[in-house]
């Protein structure tokens, strides 16, 4: 299992960051869990008890094949199937930017979980800015779509997200900004491609 985990961490450095924020044995809800690889990784490495939420039929099947709990549901309709405060962590990994009701889902995450963990591509990365400056919508490693076929409708920069959190009573506990496998600590909003936030309700 260790071997699989380490190769997975190499393949998906974002998994390692999320895992580093999660206490072993905790209760985890992974929203938009895809084929369940992250949750499976967290189960195998940290012994978490978790559920994934996913809408896509093929992903539901993949989750069952991966042996994780998955609930087929549309995140846009909220998390009414989940009791308040029933999870330690609610994860939304690279899904926020594709959601229609951005505000609602973040509030729902904090209703259902003690802490929220979010990752999203940073629209403020210099390559994105440059492409816009040159007159085009950005296409990059973290934003691999053309303007006409992108599922991403709510893109933001680190500054935008932090302003949003501040205004909505969301207290950021921790932030990690990455460019590939490299952690960015200087001018993050300019050099960071992928952002990770751990947050909670403001006391």
């Amino acid at each position, binding site marked *: 299992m260790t071997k699989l985990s380490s190769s997975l961490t190499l393949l998906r450095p974002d998994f390692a960051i999320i895992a580093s924020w999660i206490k072993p044995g905790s*209760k985890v809800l992974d929203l938009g869990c895809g084929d369940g690889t992250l949750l499976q990784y967290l189960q195998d490495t940290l012994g978490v*008890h978790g*559920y994934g939420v996913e809408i896509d*039929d093929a992903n*539901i*099947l993949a*989750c*069952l*094949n991966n*042996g*994780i*709990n*998955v*609930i*087929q*549901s549309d995140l846009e309709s909220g998390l009414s*199937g*989940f*009791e308040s405060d*029933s999870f330690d962590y609610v994860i939304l990994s690279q899904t926020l930017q594709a959601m229609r009701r951005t505000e609602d889902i973040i509030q729902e995450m904090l209703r259902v979980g003690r802490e929220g963990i979010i990752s999203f591509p940073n629209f403020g990365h210099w390559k994105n800015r440059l492409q816009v400056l040159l007159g085009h919508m950005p296409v990059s490693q973290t934003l691999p779509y053309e303007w006409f076929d992108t599922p991403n409708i709510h893109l933001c920069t680190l500054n935008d997200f932090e302003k949003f959190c501040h205004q909505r009573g969301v207290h950021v506990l921790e932030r990690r900004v990455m460019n590939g496998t490299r952690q960015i600590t200087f001018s993050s909003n300019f050099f960071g491609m992928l952002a990770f936030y751990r947050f909670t309700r403001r006391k």
Partner: protein
Amino acid sequence: MHDSDSIGIVTPQRIHFDTPLSLESGAVLDSYEQVYETYGELNAARSNAVLVCHALSGNHHVAGVYADNPKNIGWWNNMIGPDKPIDTRKFFVVGVNNIGGCHGSTGPASINKKMGKHYGADFPVVTTIDWAKTYVRLADKLGIDQFAAVVGGSLGGMSAMQLALDAPERVRHAVVIAAAAKLTAQNIAFNDVARQAIITDPDFHGGDFYSHGTIPRRGLRLARMLGHITYLSNDSMAEKFGRELRTDSLSFNFDVEFQIESYLRYQGDKFADQFDANTYLLMTKALDYFDPARDYDDDLSAAFHCAKANFLVLSFSSDWRFSPERSRSIVKALLDNKLNVSYAEIPSRHGHDSFLMKDEHYHQLVRAYMNKIST
């Protein structure tokens, strides 16, 4: 047999239980016979048994065919067999006929030895709670401490849930398909119309039609026709029959005119020839009474507090008899108890009956889940 993957020829078996069975109603069944079929081999650890619970009109003949009647194919033959989603090369599958049924287990059409005549109206009302008790007794006889899985659709799904609630240690996984945690008023209303059709048939004779040498065919036929409508979706009926006529022009009378009329009458007739009217009453009543939350102030989560099994809950998008919303309330109760559960809403056009049909995605989901069950 066209189905090369079928388990092939199967033989029903029968066990006589002479320890009295106390029923939820307070009545006692002094003794009873339980008919069942098994497919595959029980492993040395006795840990690979899968119990299949049947729906309203089902029985123990779940897969395969009978040597003397190769046309009598098990009702879930597309799901169960070698290399099928519930793989009989891996699992020891047990199909059971509920008591109160009319396919061999003791029911209203059986002879009450005490009285020397058919039970008829004397057969007590049985519930999923009573059936769960009989499943445990059968498991004891077969040497199965814990089922690897209990699987069922519709009323069968409810029976699977009931066993997981009443005998938590005996169920490792429960696969609950196209079911609900309780019936709605509309569900009960449909059931009551069906019952009224039977009960008001002059040939019913208060349930003792056996001694009168009659069968309440008209009532049973109507009950089945009504039921059948609720098992299909508007779309699937439109697709299959539309407003198609049997002849070229309108006949301006009340004979069979539209294809859907012809189809429903055929289904009704076929059913009335095979099924026992008293059993139909009992099965619909078992559906109506199923409500695990009743003793918990309508709190389903509290009702599931004692459950230990892992669950797979499946619903079908076009099922309006037991809609996906009903399955989601089961899932909610399981989540509230932090039980392992997966839930899928399967896109379908065939209504409640979808659970019996061969659909690739549906079967892949069941296969994936069953593959992960360690035996």
